[in-house]
């Protein structure tokens, strides 16, 4: 049984009279422990598809099953709980709060997690996640004082801190130099080796080819 199943997913964006058909009838299956790259030109609907999988965007039509559960039937609090516990997100621009420390940034999913952890336990888990990405000495550094690679590592620590099953990464190396990008990608692949599922959106075909499977998109469709 697949971990994530999409059946004929559609998503349109309306701005005034114009309609953009971002995703048109996409069906897919993603299995536990695999790495899937979604590739395609800019504006082909990759990020929209990723956001639908991650319960950030709701499809206009179609079925989305997350671990066998129909996403349509989830309450908003359940969707939020899934975002906290089931998925870990990494985005191109890191999405860090600039005046928060690395520790405070990485702690956020635990604040909203269903486990209702105490502060000391949260801090312990965040320390462990930051150590895992090699930032144990930067825990109290504000995000704005970190390099691009370090910032992306904080974002990865935040994505991993609640031990999610699926890592959703949207152009995770897009804002990094080649070496830092390579380091981050290698780390993500190591996570797949450790049992995580990776869904990666990228322009970079070299990175995509190093994933277990590639899904190519054009004009909102899988080709």
């Amino acid at each position: 049984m697949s971990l994530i199943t999409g059946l004929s997913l559609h998503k349109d964006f309306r701005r005034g009279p114009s309609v953009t058909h971002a995703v048109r009838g996409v069906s897919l299956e993603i299995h536990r422990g695999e790495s899937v790259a979604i590739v395609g030109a800019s504006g082909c609907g990759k990020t929209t598809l990723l956001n639908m999988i991650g319960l950030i965007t709701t499809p206009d039509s179609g079925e989305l099953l997350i671990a066998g559960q129909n996403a349509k039937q989830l309450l908003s609090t359940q969707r939020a709980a899934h975002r906290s516990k089931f998925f870990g997100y990494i985005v191109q621009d890191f999405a860090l709060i600039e005046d928060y420390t690395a520790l405070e940034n990485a702690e956020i999913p635990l604040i909203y997690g269903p486990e209702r952890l105490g502060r000391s336990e949260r801090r312990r888990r965040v320390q462990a996640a930051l150590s895992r990405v090699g930032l144990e000495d930067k825990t109290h550094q504000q995000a704005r004082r970190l390099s691009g690679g370090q910032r992306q590592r904080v974002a990865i620590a935040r994505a991993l801190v609640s031990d999610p099953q699926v890592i959703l990464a949207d152009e995770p190396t897009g804002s990094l130099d080649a070496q830092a990008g390579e380091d981050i990608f290698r780390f993500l692949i190591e996570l797949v080796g450790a049992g995580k599922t990776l869904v990666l959106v990228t322009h970079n075909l070299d990175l995509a080819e190093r994933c277990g499977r590639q899904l190519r998109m054009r004009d909102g469709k899988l080709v």
Partner: protein
Amino acid sequence: MTQLAFAIRDIRRRPVVFVFFAIQLVVVLLFLPIMAQSTIISSRNIRIAQSMADNRMVFFSQTLGTFFRRSVTPDGGRWLSSALDENLSAYSVVSSIKLREHPDLAVVVGVGSFSDLLHIKDHGNMPAGPVALIGYDVSTLRVGDHVSFGERNMEDILVHQRLPRGTHYMKRGTPQLLDNSLVVLTSAESVLGFFFVGYHHFDEILVNASLIRPSGADLLYFVSGVREMTGVALHPIELNDYSQQHHGGAFYGALFFLIFFAITSAYVLVGIVANIVLLLENHMSEYAIHLLSGACLWHLYARVFSYITLLVGPPLFLASILLRSMYQAPWAQLFSVIPLLGGLVAIIAVVPIIKLRQSDIFLHLRGD
């Protein structure tokens, strides 16, 4: 609690803006009720003065300097007593007396024709001699009780009846409510007998004297008599003229400032709402990170409500404390401030909450 901590963090990011609006709030929350109360009081004073217009009352001011050279001699005291009790339609009050058994109760000793002002029921059945009346809100005494009155000669005076709510009299042109007072009706002459320092109380009787529908001869008799007996030069003031000028002026002045502070309050509220909307726009990407990490929209609402409560609460409580300490404003009690705080927070929160609901917050995750 977590959202409160985030709201405190929001404040620490822009403390100057927060303090700026908090100070503005203190000013409007302090002066708006003061001006509203002043408007109500001056309007009530005009209404009361108009209701007494038929009495064509005259009260007096003293020529500066002469009052401090006054000396109410026994002869002067007797003359003043007979003027107020017998020769003129006049009254006066002593309000500096306290009862030993009820030290917190305001006491108004009315002499002369004071009882004519009070619209007392069955006036004719009043017992002879001093009699006590209690204001509508007095709870420490009941009709039928006796109060010990006096120092030199103590006398137990019967509390004869309770005054209707809102009963008032005029003291030097200003209405005085009697709802929380004990009124002792007696003669000016008897005040001499009750107290060791009866002549001291006569100073008060002198300055608080008012004549009812006096003729020119009455005025001349009183003013020249006081001048001769005490050395104090009195200037008669017609209550009806004074009321139009003084209370009318006070009313329009208070109304002007009430409107001014109402408009200022509206500007401050709009400023606060605009500031919070700006705060939301600046924090959208942060909110997106929170939503991405498992927050619901209601977490963001709680953060906005916490911020507004922290902004509005301290100025409101400070204004309430100042109003209670400076103006004895009974309506500024803590229990009445809490619903007001809730209402203010709700009003300010409407636009920011709509803004949050209508925004596609996740769009702010992408730099492009």
